């Protein structure tokens, strides 16, 4: 690369027009400057059910450590061995964060908080997710990182509380976890094979998937003609409504065109379609979802993925826990000769293994001076806070990835002062910190906790020590 071009690209990336650059130029610019700012940031949210026990993800050597006064406890993980169920994360310790002590009592406590877990508000009851009040953290983060598919939702299971013995769902489902905006739930794809067709079908996929894709493209054109025809028949004042509908078709076609230009990238980055994608076994399906998520991020089809890991009805047959479902295990019943706690460890170890697999794939893709994982944040959390029946006094998180160098989380164990004490924060504060770190200037994300408000504890804004 000549110095002239280098200088040119540098000036471009630093100028005010930087945000408007096409992804390609942005990529080149990033390579020149070595600045992670120019790389797209990726977000993966892995949401399990039945709570994430704080002690189970705390290094033994840190179990008794508490924050002093109003300051969060921060300890470098390199000095501490990870607990057994997190062992697979040892090679990633430099980019792992264990975050504890943020409360979420503004959400509905119990078996699940539905949209509250990532949207910080109460849902009406355990059997009803209600309406999301705002875009949830996951989609809000990725909305600033445009991609052809926007935020992708993949799910092994639907709503946390389902009917007893429900089979694993197929097709599009709505688990009540993520929202694109107030009142607009993010659809999740429960069938990995269908997800494969939808994501990669424009370039490859099953013969049937490709044919359907082409037929639907034709259908969009056919309908656009229908709308134009009708436009001639209505008064000028009503044509605007049809214009909008037409525009919606054109936007979809535009996405299809964009995908058409990405054919090579998709072909090279798409996973191999195997039998596990259509398997009836939960673990096969979940692994397929992770395979899809990795390819999705690497090809740039999406910069944000949320995976619904399970729900309370799920039976982990693939892990040898055939006797009890997640709900029973959460309520203290053992399964297949293991105690309830041992079963929870087995499930958690498995989730961690999947998370590590994804991280390893991202780490294998070079980006600038580092890897794609440097510009990724993978968050593992539960939709029910700290326990199977979370009281939401705290909401533990595992955070994996470099987070674009924006957060003081990778490599650290962080524990906030306990609920009700000075310096304590809510998940609203935590999410605000993340959003602010990624350039979203929101003052505060989510609803307040009235109890804390009565105590006069400040509740708004980010935790500045988390942001670099």
């Amino acid at each position, binding site marked *: 690369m000549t110095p002239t071009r280098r200088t040119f690209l540098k000036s471009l990336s630093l100028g005010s027009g930087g945000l408007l650059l096409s992804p390609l130029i942005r990529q080149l610019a990033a390579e020149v400057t070595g600045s992670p700012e120019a790389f797209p940031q990726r977000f993966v949210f892995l949401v399990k059910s039945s709570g994430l026990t704080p002690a189970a993800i705390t290094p033994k050597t840190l179990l008794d450590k508490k924050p002093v006064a109003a300051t969060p406890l921060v300890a470098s993980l390199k000095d501490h061995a990870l607990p057994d169920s997190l062992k697979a994360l040892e090679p990633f310790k430099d980019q792992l964060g264990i975050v504890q002590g943020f409360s979420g009592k503004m959400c509905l406590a119990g078996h699940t908080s539905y949209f509250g877990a990532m949207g910080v508000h109460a849902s009406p009851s355990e059997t*009803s997710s209600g309406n999301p009040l705002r875009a949830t953290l996951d989609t809000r983060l990725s909305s600033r990182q445009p991609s052809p598919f926007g935020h992708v939702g993949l799910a092994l299971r639907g709503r946390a509380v389902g009917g007893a013995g429900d089979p694993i769902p197929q097709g599009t*489902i709505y688990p009540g976890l993520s929202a694109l905006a107030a009142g607009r739930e993010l*659809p999740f794809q429960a069938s990995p094979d269908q997800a494969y067709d939808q994501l990669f079908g424009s370039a490859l996929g099953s013969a049937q998937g490709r044919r359907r894709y*082409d*037929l639907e493209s034709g*259908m969009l054109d056919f*309908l656009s003609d229908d709308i134009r025809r009708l436009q001639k028949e209505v008064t000028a004042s009503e044509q605007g*409504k049809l214009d909008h509908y037409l525009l919606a078709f054109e936007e979809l076609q535009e996405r299809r065109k964009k995908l058409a230009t990405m054919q090579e990238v998709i072909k090279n980055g798409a996973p191999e379609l195997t039998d596990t994608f259509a398997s009836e076994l939960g673990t096969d399906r979940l692994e397929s979802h992770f395979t899809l998520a990795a390819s999705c991020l690497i090809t740039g089809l999406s910069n944000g993925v949320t995976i619904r890991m399970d729900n309370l009805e799920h039976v982990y047959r693939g892990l040898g826990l055939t006797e009890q479902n997640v709900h029973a295990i959460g309520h203290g019943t053992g399964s297949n000769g293991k105690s309830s706690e041992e079963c929870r460890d087995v499930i958690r170890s498995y989730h961690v293994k999947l998370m590590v697999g994804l991280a390893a794939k991202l780490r294998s893709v070079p980006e600038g001076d580092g890897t794609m994982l440097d510009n990724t944040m993978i968050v593992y959390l539960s939709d029910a806070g700290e326990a199977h029946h979370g009281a939401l006094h705290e909401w533990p998180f595992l955070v994996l990835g470099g987070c674009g160098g924006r957060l003081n989380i990778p490599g650290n164990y962080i524990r906030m002062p306990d609920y009700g004490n000075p310096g304590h924060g809510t998940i609203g504060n935590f999410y605000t910190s993340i959003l602010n770190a990624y350039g979203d200037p929101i003052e505060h994300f989510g609803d307040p906790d009235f109890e804390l408000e009565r105590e006069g504890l400040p509740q708004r804004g980010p935790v500045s020590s988390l942001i670099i």
Partner: protein
Amino acid sequence: MNRKLSEGRGMVPNFPSGLNPAILQGYRCVINSLFSLLAPQLLAPVMLMLGGIVPAAAEDESSPPFEHGAFLQTFFESNCVKCHGAKKAKGGIRLDQMGGKIALGHDFETWNAIHEQLSSGEMPPEDAKAQPDAAERAKAVAWIGGELEKAQSSERVQHLLSQFAFGNHIEHEKLFSGEIKDLPFSPPRLWRINPNIYERTKHRILKHHWEELQRVRQPFALEKRPGINDYAADLLADSATLETLIRNARTIVEHQLSNDVAEALRAVLESEKPGTKQIDAAVQHQFKMLILRPPTAAELVRYRTYMLRTIAEAKSVREGMAVCLKAIALIPEAIYRMELGLGPEDQDGRRRLSKNELAFAISFALTDDPPDAALWEAKLETAESVRTQVERILDEDEIAKPKILRFFQEFFGYHRAPDVFKDAKRYENYDWGNVPYQLVHEADLLVLHILARDQDVLHELLTTKKYFVGHFGSEGDPQELEERLAALRLLHDYWKDKPWRELKYELKPEVRADIEALHPYFRTQPAKHRMSGGLIKDYMGYLPVCFENGIRPMLAQFTLMEGERERNLTSAHDQRFFLNAYNLKFDQFDCPTEQPFELNPKQRAGLLTHPAWLIAHSKNTDTNPITRGKWIRERLLAGHVPDVPITVNAVVPEDPKKTLRERFRPTRQEECWRCHKKMNPLGMTFEAYDDFGRFRTADKVSGRPIDASGHLDSTGDDRLDGDVGSAVELVQRLGQSERVRQSFVRHAFRYWMGRNEMPSDSVTLIAADQAYLKSGGSFQSLLVSLISSDSFIYRKQAKP
């Protein structure tokens, strides 16, 4: 604009570029001065309403153009700068520094505020030493108004006027004066399908297939804003709608081709090379299922050709047919109802809705279903034949007419109670979740009861002393209730000496058998109401208290739909807690068999003192006298309260030693009181209820006594205007007001026409009001009058 739309926020008009984003965010304030931009024929009445000043200069085209810097600067210096200059700058406004580039959007929001204050006569304040003379004021108003108009496009103004929030900007007296003789009409329009209609269509196709029902999502959800939501003008289909529709279409068509396959579709599926006849039948079937009418001849040809083409392209009959069936689910008419006026034109240039258009319009005015056979067959050529059909549908009990109850929910707004987030700890330390749903349900029962009697409907709704509490409603079967009571008594006797507290959720088979042997009731319940350990514990926490105290327990047991989920209110545990909102105690409440019953006439009268209404119009932790006062001013008194000026940071000062009324004292300051006097004296009367709707005589936090006095004005009736001692007294006066009745008629008009009234709707409004009055307050009569009116039946382009 597109981004805004995709967020589902409705159409937000474009603003001149370079404006402060605060304007975009809070455009409500900017719009306050809407009257400056009204179409000429609307300008005069609005000006009159707001202070009796008609801007002569605006109408006098021969006036020389006003030059900023000379007249206006002098005008400000003589009349305004003393308070709004370098020394005082009241409200943060300095008029000595204003530039004159209004048309370019400079200081846009401030100029709007100035214009509003000047034209309404609110500024200079009444107690100012001197007032500008009328001509000077009019000249200033006209010039600023003219410049503001340049900064806008007239389309935008038209859009604003079409919003529900601006419905009251038309002078009330004039609408009902009888002077306007114009022939009424509605503009031709496309009206986005109502979510409830889509919901019904979906259930009609998917029937009991639960998984598919879950998967087909609502593409047309309304925002649930306060007031009437389903307006033809501001509902659009955007890319989010389309994506949902496509996803739904895939599910629906996959279902149609896999389960309970209709004969018309099966014939195509089973044929290797389907012929025209078979294809036509499939197209006709899909139109009937999704567009709710047969295809026209042209449509049939177009879709036949398309299906043949897609079958060839797909090299599969099933795949090809599926694409065409999906396409029909996405045609514009699946999104928008067409009300273009395809019937004959009269001598006034108004076009009648065609027979088909009218049949749909009538059916969707009352139900969520397409026209029934009788309506399809009716000629509908005269207002009389329309009236006959509307009366028939209203009379036939077996036709569900959910649109009527929904009007009352939207008009009163009590159904929004569950949307107000409440801190459970302050409410009996109990999970608040189910309580507001039950309260809304009981408010619904009351409305339905009053509608069934259909006499003095509005007066009854505002002043009735009777309420439903823990009851089935008028439809409940007394025999069934007695059966349940007998069964529960046996359940109680069975468990009273047994360790019921130790029951697990799942009952052991032998225990279940025991219970089912107690009484047939336990064998006949649907699965969702069947006894479980949890339910028994709930009942045993309640029934012994009732039987020991000799009171009749509450027996209501019902399922509410919340969106697409069912909410079962079956447990005594839930039921006993909601009583608190009525100031009742579960261990003392002897649930009357005959309901509605007189609750406490000194404390409560009508819907506005129903806990559901009070909660819906409260804040998270406080009551909300401002919203309540504004509600009465706008919904019942046909008035208008401007939004908070952009320069005012409206925060109620915290002080645990004072009541809310005392904390509101700052609003008595002159510049605040100008607007607050329209709200506070009305809203403060509801301070006799806390934010959970519970009657109180003292404030819990400050311990100070509650002052619930207030003042009513602008009813146009001297006998009603004046001080009131309580909310009960206030609603009784409102119930007698002609203006309140007419304001109610205006809102019914808006709901059923899907738009704000225009001056030319005067004849329709007066006729509806008279129909209601002459029938002794029959809501059905009002409805028949509205739906058979020219405003409903005729279409004509409104003049801008």
